[in-house]
C-alpha cells in the first residue's frame, strides 16, 4: 500500500494557494460530462454535492435517510470555529492552526490542518449568505464565544442548534441543485459496496430501503461523506443509524483505514438508566463553566447528593488540577470520572455517574442567570431523567462521541484507491488524536464546500469520462457479493436480535478499547470479537425478506460490519504502544498521570490494510512532521 500524502511544496501558509494554482482544471464545458457520486448528506456530503453541482458536474447524491436533512450533523450543539478574529483578541489563521495541531496531540498532518484554518473564514461568509441564523450582538454583528478551553473567542453558534442550522443551509443549497437538475437525489438508498475496477473506484452498489432493490451506479469518481463509527460502542451520542458500513466496505476494497483507535469520549453525557438504553444524550460542555464536579468521599455513602455535607465531598478535578479545575480537557475530565466510578464512588441508582452541581453557581449568580445560561439544557436533562437540576445535582458520565480516525486520505482527500475520496468525519486527516470542540462542523464544511470540489477536478482532468458503465462484469461481481451477504443474514435461523449482538459488542469495546486500553484488555477483546462474530452469524434472527422496508435487515447488516471493524480498532490500539490525546494506555503515563507520547516511535499515522475477515491486518505508517508547531507535552495542572 503506497502512502503518498502529496503535500504541496512551499511554506505551510502558501501550500493551499500554490496548490490551487498548480492543480489541473476541468474545462467548464466538459464538467457536465463527468458523473460524481457523493455518499452521505451531512455537512460534508450536502455541501460537497451542492458545490460540485454548482460547478457543473453531474452529481448523484445518496443517503440512507428518508431525507438528506436527517443526517446526524443536525444534532451538533455547540458551535463552529473560525479564525475571523472579530473579537480582536489575538486570533489568527495561524493560531487556529496551532491550537488544532496541539489539541490533536501532534498526530495530525500539519498541511491539512493549516488549510482547514484558512478556509474556516470562508465557511462563515458562506453560511451567513445562505441565511444561517447565527447568534448576533445587539449591534447586529455576529456573536462569538470561547469554547472547549480555547483562549480566544472564535466559536460561532446558533443557540444550541448550530449543527441543525448549518446542515439546513447546506441541505437547502443541495435542494437548489436538485431543482436545477444538477444533483440527482437518491434518498433511502444505502451504499453497501464500492466497485473498484483495475484499482480505480468506478461506482457503488446500493439497496433501496423502501423497495429492497439492489442497484448499481457507475461514476467517474466517488466521494464518501459517511461520518464516524462511534456506534461501535453501541451506546454513544451518535444517532441510531450512524454506522461504519460505507467506510468499512471501502476498506475491504483496498482503502487504507487510518488511526481507527482514535475515538473521542465526551465528558458530559447523561448516564444510562438501564439495560434497554438505546443511546446516550450529550449535554453541552459549557455546563462545566459554572457547574462543579464531585463524588462522595466515602464509596459507601448512599445519601442523596444534597444530604452530603461539603467536607464529605471530593471535588476531584479542582483537587487534581487546581488551575484548570472543572475545565480540564475532554479526555482528562472523562478519564477521571471513569476512575471515580471504577473506585466505587459512582452516584445515581446504578452508581454509574458523577455529580455536576449548580448549587454554588445558583448562590453566586442567582437562579435567573443560571436559567438564562443553561435553561434549555436543564429542561432537556429533566425531560430525560425526571430530576430537576435547579434542586439537586445533575448526574453525568462520559460517552463516545466522535471518531478522529477514518479512511486515510492524501492532501487532495483521495484515499489509497484512486477516484475514491473521503470527506468530513469519514476521513482521518485533521484532528489527530483528539478533536477540539467546535471543530467537527468546521472540518465537514471545509472539506465539502472548499476542498473536495476543487481537488476532484485535479483527479478528473486525467480521466476520460464515462468509460465504464454498470454492465461491466465487476458490477455483477460486487452485486453478487452484496446479495449473498444479505441472503446469509436473512437465512440465519437463530432467535436473537441484531441489536442484542450490537449491545454485547459495545460492552466489549467500551470495556477494553474505550477510555483506557491495556495490552491485556485489548488481547481479550481480540479473542472475544471473532467469537461473537461467529455467534452472530449462527444465532441472529432477521425477520421478513429482502423486499420492501425491513429495518431489522438494515440494522443486522450494520452490526455485521461493526463486528468486523472492531478488530482493526483493537489492533490499532494495541500496536500504538504509547498514549496520545484520547488514546490512553496506562503503561504510558507521565509522572502526573497524563498521556505520555512517544514521538520517537509513534509520530505517524497508522494505516491499516485489509487482508481478510479475522486475519491480522497489515500496518503501514505515514510519518508526520511538525516543522511549524514543535511538539510539546500538555500540562493542565
Amino acid at each position, binding site marked *: 500500500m503506497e502512502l503518498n500524502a502529496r503535500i504541496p511544496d512551499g511554506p505551510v501558509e502558501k501550500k493551499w494557494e500554490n496548490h490551487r494554482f498548480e492543480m489541473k482544471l476541468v474545462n467548464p464545458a466538459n464538467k457536465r460530462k463527468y458523473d460524481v457520486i457523493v455518499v452521505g448528506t451531512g455537512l460534508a456530503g450536502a455541501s460537497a454535492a451542492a458545490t460540485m453541482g454548482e460547478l457543473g458536474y453531474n452529481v448523484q447524491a445518496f443517503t440512507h*435517510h428518508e*431525507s438528506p436533512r436527517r443526517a446526524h450533523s443536525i444534532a451538533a450543539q455547540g458551535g463552529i470555529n473560525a479564525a475571523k478574529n472579530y473579537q480582536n483578541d489575538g486570533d489568527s489563521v495561524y493560531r487556529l492552526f496551532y491550537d488544532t495541531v496541539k489539541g490533536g496531540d501532534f498526530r495530525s498532518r500539519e498541511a491539512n490542518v493549516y488549510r482547514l484554518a484558512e478556509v474556516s473564514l470562508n465557511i462563515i461568509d458562506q453560511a451567513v449568505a*445562505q*441565511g444561517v441564523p447565527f447568534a448576533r450582538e445587539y449591534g447586529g454583528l455576529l456573536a462569538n464565544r470561547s469554547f472547549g478551553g480555547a483562549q480566544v473567542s472564535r466559536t460561532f453558534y446558533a443557540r444550541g442548534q448550530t449543527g441543525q442550522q448549518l446542515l439546513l443551509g447546506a441541505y*437547502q443549497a443541495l435542494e437548489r441543485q436538485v431543482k436545477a437538475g444538477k444533483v440527482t*437525489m437518491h434518498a433511502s438508498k444505502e451504499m453497501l459496496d464500492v466497485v473498484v475496477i483495475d484499482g480505480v473506484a468506478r461506482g457503488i452498489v446500493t439497496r433501496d430501503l423502501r423497495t429492497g432493490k439492489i442497484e448499481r451506479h457507475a461514476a467517474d469518481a466517488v466521494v464518501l461523506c459517511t461520518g464516524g463509527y462511534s456506534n461501535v460502542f453501541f451506546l454513544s451520542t451518535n444517532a441510531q443509524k450512524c454506522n461504519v458500513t460505507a467506510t468499512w466496505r471501502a476498506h475491504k476494497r483496498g482503502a487504507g483505514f487510518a488511526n481507527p483507535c482514535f475515538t473521542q469520549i465526551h465528558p458530559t453525557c447523561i448516564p444510562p438508566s438501564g439495560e434497554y*438504553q438505546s443511546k446516550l444524550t450529550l449535554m453541552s460542555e459549557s455546563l462545566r463553566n459554572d457547574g462543579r464536579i464531585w463524588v462522595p468521599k466515602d464509596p459507601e455513602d448512599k445519601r442523596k447528593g444534597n444530604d452530603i455535607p461539603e467536607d464529605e465531598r471530593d471535588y476531584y478535578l479542582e483537587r487534581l488540577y487546581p488551575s484548570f479545575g472543572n475545565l480540564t480537557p475532554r479526555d482528562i475530565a472523562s478519564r477521571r470520572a471513569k476512575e471515580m466510578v471504577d473506585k466505587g464512588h459512582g452516584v445515581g441508582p446504578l452508581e454509574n455517574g458523577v455529580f455536576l452541581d449548580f448549587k454554588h453557581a445558583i448562590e453566586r449568580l442567582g437562579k435567573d442567570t443560571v436559567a438564562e445560561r443553561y435553561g434549555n439544557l436543564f429542561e432537556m436533562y429533566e*425531560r430525560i431523567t425526571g430530576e430537576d437540576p435547579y434542586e439537586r445535582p445533575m448526574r453525568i458520565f462520559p460517552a463516545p462521541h466522535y471518531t478522529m480516525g477514518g479512511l486515510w486520505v492524501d492532501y487532495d482527500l483521495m484515499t489509497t484507491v484512486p477516484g475514491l475520496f473521503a470527506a468530513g468525519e469519514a476521513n482521518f486527516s485533521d484532528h489527530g488524536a483528539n478533536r477540539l470542540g467546535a471543530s467537527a462542523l468546521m472540518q465537514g464544511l471545509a472539506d465539502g464546500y*472548499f476542498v473536495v470540489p476543487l481537488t476532484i477536478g485535479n483527479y478528473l482532468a486525467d480521466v476520460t469520462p464515462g468509460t465504464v458503465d454498470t454492465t461491466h462484469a465487476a458490477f455483477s461481481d460486487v452485486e453478487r457479493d452484496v446479495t449473498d451477504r444479505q441472503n446469509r443474514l436473512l437465512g440465519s435461523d437463530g432467535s436473537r*436480535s441484531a441489536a442484542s449482538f450490537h449491545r454485547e459488542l459495545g460492552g466489549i469495546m467500551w470495556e477494553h478499547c474505550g477510555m483506557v486500553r491495556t495490552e491485556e484488555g485489548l488481547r481479550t477483546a481480540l479473542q472475544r470479537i471473532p467469537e461473537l462474530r461467529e455467534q452472530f452469524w449462527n444465532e441472529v434472527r432477521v425477520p421478513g425478506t429482502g423486499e420492501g422496508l425491513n429495518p431489522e435487515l438494515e440494522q443486522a447488516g450494520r452490526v455485521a460490519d461493526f463486528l468486523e471493524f472492531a478488530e482493526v480498532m483493537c489492533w490499532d490500539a494495541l500496536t500504538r504502544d504509547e498514549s496520545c490525546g484520547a488514546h490512553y494506555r496506562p503503561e504510558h503515563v507521565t509522572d502526573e498521570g497524563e498521556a505520555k507520547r512517544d514521538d520517537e516511535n509513534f509520530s505517524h499515522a497508522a494505516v491499516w490494510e485489509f487482508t481478510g475477515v479475522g486475519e491480522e491486518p497489515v500496518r503501514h505508517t505515514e510519518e508526520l512532521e511538525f516543522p511549524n508547531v514543535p511538539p510539546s507535552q500538555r500540562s493542565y495542572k
Partner: protein
Amino acid sequence: MDLKLNVWRQSGPDDPGRFESYEAKDISPDMSFLEMLDVVNERLLEEDGDPIAFDHDCREGICGSCGMMIDGVPHGPKSMTTVCQLHMRSFEDGDELTLEPFRASSFPVLKDLYVDRTPFDTIIASGGYISVRTGSAKEANSEPVRKRDADAAFDAAACIGCAACVAACPNASAMLFTASKVAHLAHLPQGQTERYSRVLDMIDTHDSEGFGNCTNHGACENACPKGISVDYIAQLNRDLFKATVTAQPEPARG
C-alpha cells in the same frame, strides 16, 4: 409498569392495514417511548413475530425522523416534545394506548408507523433557499442584522420537518412547515431578493404535492414539538398576498 398497545400494522403502501394489540410488560418509567417500543420489538423478534416498523434516528428531538400518533395526538401527550424524548413516566401503569402513523394522503405509509415525507423536500427544492453559490459570499460581518430579526429568523428556522403539523391538521395542510421556511428567510436581509418569488413557488409546490389549505384551526402550533407559531402563517399570507398582487413574474429558475 404494564401497558396495552393497539398498533396500526400495514405491510406496505398497498396493504389496507389494521390494528393489532400487544402487551408491553415490565416497562421502566425511565424508558423513552421508543425504547419501550424497542423492548416490545425485541420480544416480538424472539417469539418469531414481525417487529413494528417506525422511523427514528437521533433520539434527541432534532433530526425530525420520528413521529407517530399516540391516542390521536402527534408525538403524544407531552407538549414541545418529540416522541423520542417522551418518557414512560408520562403514562400510568395499565394504560391502553393507540399508535398510528402520521396520516396524510401526501405521505404514503411505507410500513406500520413509517411514512414517506419526501414532499417536504420537494417544497424546499422549489424555493426554500437563498441562491448563493459557494465562493460568492461577501464578508459575513459586512451586513449587520438586527438582533430581533435574527432571533425571529431563528425561531422560524427551528422547524425539524417532522410533519406533526400535517398530521394534526384536519386539512392535512403543510402550511406551518412552509411558513417556517418562508419566514426564516424573509426575516433576513439576505433573503429579500427572492422573497416574493420564493413564497409563490413554495405555495405552488405545497398545493401540487396534495397538501390541503390552511383554515386557521391552529392545531399545528399545538402539535409542533419546536413551538413554531402560527403567526408565521399569517406572515406567509401577507407575503403571498403582496406577491400575488404586486410582484412581477420572475423568469423561470434554473
